[in-house]
């Protein structure tokens, strides 16, 4: 079948509350971008193109979390115009760092940041896309890893399930031969409970993992918390490290001392 006659699948990229970093990862595929554009029709991607093609779309990549009443409605329309919907990143998958409002009074937040709270309309919580519509696949990371993004898109084109490991960052350290920062240097590290995918970057820079890929499939948060205490981490420090970029992801949301 020639390229000219084959109907290319339509790709759409949607944004909700987020920093744009995950969709930027697509443009960061400098070596693959033009080849990708030959395989899919980039039908809706406002950050990259002013041309838009009407849906329905074969594959929708959704970045960002739901934080406004309008967005709660918009995601329903995105879902109904998408054959498959994949969330990209911690915001879309777990609510993102802005889900820290879920543990506070959002009205206090509005008053702290804005001189005219009456101009601001926002929901009391930041919630993942899966809380609103069925999601076909969730890609973790704050930000996502661009190789994993290419794997998700390629798998979709071929019609198979993406090959994305659900193990911990520890397995990636072992594979790349990084000495364990927690065992060897006593550096607190969330690697044992954090979803693989980044390639274990932080430990290779002499730094403990800070959990930006969120919880792995079956994390033992209790055991890790005990280990962090043994390394003299304060309860406040433990609480903070679990409650950052994936604060509302269930096993992390309940971690630490003062959250049930």
């Amino acid at each position: 079948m020639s390229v000219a006659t084959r109907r290319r699948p339509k790709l759409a990229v949607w944004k909700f509350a987020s920093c744009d970093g995950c969709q930027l990862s697509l443009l960061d595929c400098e070596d693959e971008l033009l080849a990708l554009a030959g395989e899919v029709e980039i039908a809706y991607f406002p950050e990259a193109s002013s041309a838009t093609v009407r849906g329905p779309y074969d594959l929708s990549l959704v970045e960002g979390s739901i934080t406004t009443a309008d967005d709660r409605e918009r995601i329903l329309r995105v879902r109904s115009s998408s054959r498959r919907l994949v969330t990209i990143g911690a915001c879309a998958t777990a609510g993102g760092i802005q889900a820290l409002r879920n543990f506070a009074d959002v009205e206090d937040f509005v008053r702290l940041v804005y001189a005219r709270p009456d101009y601001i309309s926002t929901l009391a919580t930041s919630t993942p896309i899966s809380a609103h519509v069925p999601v076909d696949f969730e890609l973790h990371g704050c930000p996502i890893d661009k190789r994993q993004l290419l794997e998700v898109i390629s798998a979709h084109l071929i019609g198979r399930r993406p090959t994305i490991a659900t193990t911990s960052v520890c397995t990636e350290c072992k594979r790349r031969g990084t000495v364990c920062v927690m065992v060897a240097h006593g550096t607190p590290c969330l690697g044992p409970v954090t979803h693989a995918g980044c390639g274990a970057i932080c430990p290779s820079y002499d730094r403990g993992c800070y959990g930006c890929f969120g919880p792995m499939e079956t994390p033992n948060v209790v055991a890790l918390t005990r280990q962090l205490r043994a390394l003299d981490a304060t309860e406040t420090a433990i609480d903070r490290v679990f409650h950052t970029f994936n604060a509302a992801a269930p096993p992390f949301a309940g971690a630490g001392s003062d959250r049930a």
Partner: protein
Amino acid sequence: MPERRTKTIKTDVLARVEGEGAMRVRIESGRVTEVQLRIYEPPRFFEAFLRGRDFTEALDITSRICGICPIAYQMSAVTAMESLCGVEVGGQLRALRRLLYCGEWIESHALHVFMLHAPDFLGFESAVAMAREHPTIVTDALALKKAGNEVMRVVGGREVHPINVRVGGVHRAPRKAELATLVAGLERAREIALGAVRLTASFDFPDYDQDIELVALAQPGEYPIDRGRIISSTGLDIAPEEYESRFVEQHVPWSHALHSQRTGGGNYLVGPLARFATSFAALTPLAREAAADVGLRAPERNPFRSIVVRAVELVHAVDEALELIAAYEEPDAPAIEVEPRAGVGHGATEAPRGLLYHRYEIDADGTILAANIVPPTSQNQIAIEADLRGVVERSLELPDEQLSRLCEQTIRNYDPCISCATHFLTLEVERC
């Protein structure tokens, strides 16, 4: 009585900007009566949830404000915390952080010049569409962008939200051999950047000059990136600590971004035009020469030519990155110890799109008590609105569709990062 007709043109989403916003221009009897740049980006309340966090966390948390310029956030935050704690990071540690910042400038400017802005001048909807007719321009652009991203990856650990910066220095200083892997890509990038200056200078620019105060950092002997005093084209010269006494933020009903003005009134802008005007002499000789060769002189007052200035800054950033790598010696320690102390700290650095100011108050344990962040796009919002008014008034004879496109291009002159400013750029021209 003459019949009054209201005509509205809408572009549902203003494309090729980072984030979502809307634009509304109201024209009554041939006069522009109202211009609003509306930023719908849902608020995420960073300044609120920073309270109660540790002073060492602010840099990684604030980097999540913007996936396009995370290093800018990291550097303004880390500078504020270090100054608060009485520490100044110098020598090779500073050189490494400046190298990382050059990487972000290269990546961000290459993205904006070629993928977001050049399609306006060459008449394409996107860089991908542009690639069909101008394959070399786009493949070169991607190589240039990649050279910047590689600096981010090697020095910072990854391209988006790098992980290597810490209060007091970096987590791990890269080996000389690691930095050496960047040289070939940067040398090619330098040639591409020089080509970008010639290419962008050949574009047709609308005839439009603005008379507005230009504000940027300045530091003797170096192009403003990671530190300096805040100076302006009209004689302002202050330390970053004095920023909030000279600039005010206002909340307007149509936008989630706060508008910045000079205290007591007066519009200003930040970004490439401001840096180029106030620190032209500090560009590398090659960058100055590239500007002179295409007849670009400081100050440049036409915001549409900001794309040429960005290309000149690309030459500079690549050139300086190569210099920093050539002069690099591995430091003895990756960071200096920093003990928290109660007080207030200020950090100002130059994000690719302009001055980014942070202020933090912390207690003796290092817990953050208050935070204030002023991103470049909120500082430029009034200037963008003023330009839109000026551009529309000169172009009223244009059909609505062309006028809409010209408005979008005017906004893109500022490389607005709406995620930063707090997104949906809907363009609406209303003629009464």
